């Protein structure tokens, strides 16, 4: 292979990689290559007995790590780290109230917790 051919190939690959990352249509084409189609039996709002779904793999398992052992603090303890306007998901179960900040949920996507004796998964 000549050096010029090598440069052309390297440049072409570089352009393809950038396109896959930054051009939505290319990215979606690439992701759809790593897709799996499943059929789910369910009563869905549309009234259809089965639903065809396409599962796309984007990241590895646990690339975004779940929170398995969440630690909670009181509002008084949280004053220094919670802004009044920042958004939370709030849950009330059996008289127990908990808030899950979206800034944190955005980076972990799921918290496994037990609230009011009930095991819950808070997802974002």
């Amino acid at each position, binding site marked *: 292979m000549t050096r010029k051919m090598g440069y052309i190939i390297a440049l072409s690959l570089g352009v393809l990689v950038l396109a896959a990352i930054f051009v939505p249509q290319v990215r979606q084409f690439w992701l759809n290559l790593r897709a799996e189609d499943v059929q789910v039996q369910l009563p869905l709002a549309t009234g259809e007995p089965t639903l065809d779904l396409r599962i796309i793999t984007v990241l590895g398992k646990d690339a975004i790590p779940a*929170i398995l052992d969440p630690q909670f603090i009181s509002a008084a303890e949280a004053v220094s780290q919670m802004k009044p306007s920042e958004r939370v998901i709030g849950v009330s179960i059996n008289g127990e109230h908990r*808030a899950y900040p979206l800034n944190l949920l955005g980076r972990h996507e799921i918290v496994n917790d037990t609230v009011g004796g009930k095991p819950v998964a808070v997802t974002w």
Partner: protein
Amino acid sequence: MSGKLIMNAVVLYDHQTDTLWSQFLSRGVRGPLSGTSLEIIPSVQTTWEQWLQLHPTTLVLDKGGRYQSDTYERYYRDGSAGILGEANKDNRLPRKELVLGVATDGGAKAYPFSAISQQRVINDRFDGDEVVVTFDPDSETGAIFQRALDGQSLTFQPAGTNELGIMLMEDQQTGSTWQAFTGQAVSGPLTGKVLERLPSHYSFWFAWSDFHPDTALWGVG
């Protein structure tokens, strides 16, 4: 998290059976528990300030001094439909319009923020039930409740806010005052009663119409 998506919404896995679960549908989609549905617990998305005023004894997940910004700030504002694009284009609303959505086995309905911001308390019907939708545009807090209580159907109207800024509503039948997001009556003949809450969640319109192509839509057209 499995690292997988279905129509831009995350796919979870469980440690016990390795079943994959669609978050948006709250249902198993592949593996031993495929088809099983997860019980949705009603929750509220709101500001920390509002939540604390509603529930002064609340605990909050410890951020350890970190997570001071929202990683999706730019995404909320841009025009893109997730990273996969829309599966089913529905032009009744712009794709990134936010809606309060409710779905049961009997149907799906979306209440656009732009439409419910004006009225704030909306008496409506959904899936054969009489419901009330409440929305505070300042804190972007919204909920949906059953209007039926002890055999009678209540009709609600806005009743301002209390001294802590918590949105209130009043029923026309008894004149009782209710907290709009807990569904609890705080004064009047029905004090202490709590309306039954339907599970609802916020969604961008493109995602809601992808998962619920035949969804009803309030206040548009």
